[in-house]
């Protein structure tokens, strides 16, 4: 199985504070992997390192075999990125942002974007900054789907969403990833959302990985417990 993401001996500190040491993991093609952890365990740090926006103290990460510090533009076209809080160019309208992004992606799927926008019942000229958090999350998701990327990297996709939009987001994402065979690497602090989406999970604690295995295997090892229960069992209560 082709390896899409590979992180080896990753160590990072913020000042003197250790985030993690000697972190190793791999993501295979077609896998939907969830990086789970309490706040401050380094989930966003890992995404930042993976996307080349943070240089780790030591260690190396590759995506599609390329060092993340120097990813070629063509390879970036294969990676769809969702920033924490569904940040987008919110000074643009629904129409303008689609026009902007479509110029950069050869496999751009306009229909996927507008199908999702139709569900929002908003005018194409509607400015993103004037939308609710939930609507903005759908715009961000629509842009990701339209990119038709091979790898989706989603940082805390559930942040700021009410249960309805979280569910909509999860269902759309799950169906898309399964039907299209996409590789997904995501983080979230709401574990219950992930149970239905991820095939494999990496549970992080302060400074280390506690568990990395198939979600089904993990759940089978703890009969009668949900992924959220297992997470609390492993990481301890807040």
């Amino acid at each position, binding site marked *: 199985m082709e390896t899409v993401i590979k992180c080896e001996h990753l160590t990072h500190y913020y000042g003197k504070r250790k985030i993690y040491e000697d972190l190793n993991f791999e993501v295979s093609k077609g896998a939907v992997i969830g990086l789970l952890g309490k706040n401050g365990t380094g989930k966003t740090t890992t995404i*930042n390192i993976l996307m080349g926006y943070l240089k780790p103290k030591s260690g190396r990460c590759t995506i599609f075999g390329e060092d993340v510090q120097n990813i070629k533009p063509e390879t*970036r076209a294969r*990676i769809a990125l969702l*920033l924490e809080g569904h940040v987008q160019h919110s000074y643009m309208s629904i129409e303008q942002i689609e026009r*902007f*992004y479509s110029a*950069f992606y050869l496999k751009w799927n306009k229909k996927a974007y507008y199908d999702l926008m139709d569900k929002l019942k908003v005018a194409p000229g509607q400015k993103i900054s004037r939308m609710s958090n939930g609507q903005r999350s759908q715009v961000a998701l629509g842009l990701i789907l339209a990119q038709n990327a091979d790898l989706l990297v989603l940082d805390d996709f559930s942040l700021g969403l009410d249960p309805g939009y979280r569910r909509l987001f999860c269902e759309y994402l799950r169906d898309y990833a399964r039907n299209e065979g996409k590789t997904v690497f995501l983080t979230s602090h709401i574990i219950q959302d992930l149970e239905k989406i991820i095939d494999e999970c990496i549970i992080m604690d302060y400074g280390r990985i506690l568990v990395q295995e198939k979600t089904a295997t993990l759940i089978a090892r703890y009969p009668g417990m949900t992924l959220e229960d297992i997470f609390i069992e492993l990481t301890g209560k807040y």
Partner: protein
Amino acid sequence: MKKMIFYKEWIKTRWYMLAAAAVLISGTAYILLGLGKAAQFKGNAFLWGYVIAHDSVLIEQLRYLPFILGGLLAVVQMLPELAGKRLKLTLHIPYPQWKTILLMCLYGIAALSVLFSVQAVAVSIALNRWIAAELVCRIMKTAAVWYLAGFVSYIWSASVCLEPSWKMRTLLLVLLAGMAHLLFISPVPEAYNGFLPWLALYSAAGLCMVFHGIARFKEGVQD
């Protein structure tokens, strides 16, 4: 793709550009109407005499305008990139990162060039009606440094906005303030003629600081 980068910058700055054009047009029109009145009631000779006797360039009130407009354009254009760390999205588009940033800066430089050129042409045409071409040339050479100050202000303010750490931002602001002081220290007409190429170089050096800020952003530098 280049067009789309300009398109994004245009969407961000279009209202500001309209406002900047309105301020520049109204400010210039106000000064020129005043000069026109003086020429009409007191004669062109009065303006000539005033320029020579007072070592005046007649349009002194406009000297800080390009500097202010340049700095504000950088803020309006670059701050949205920092809000929510949107710069990550901009750098993630499948286009060479250095080209993306360069095109963003070129957009600002081109936008300011249009504004400043229109003003310079309007002022030159108006002044040519009242005073000798040699005097107009002297005034426009003096004004050249003000326009250059506009570009310096734009590029260095952009580097301040894109720099991820406050310590470095403060240092860049000090450099920008020092430069502003230097650019406006002498009110004597044509005082900067000999320095203009150096000032242009300094202005271009600001671009290196923009890229330096981007490199630091990519390393994850923060306070």
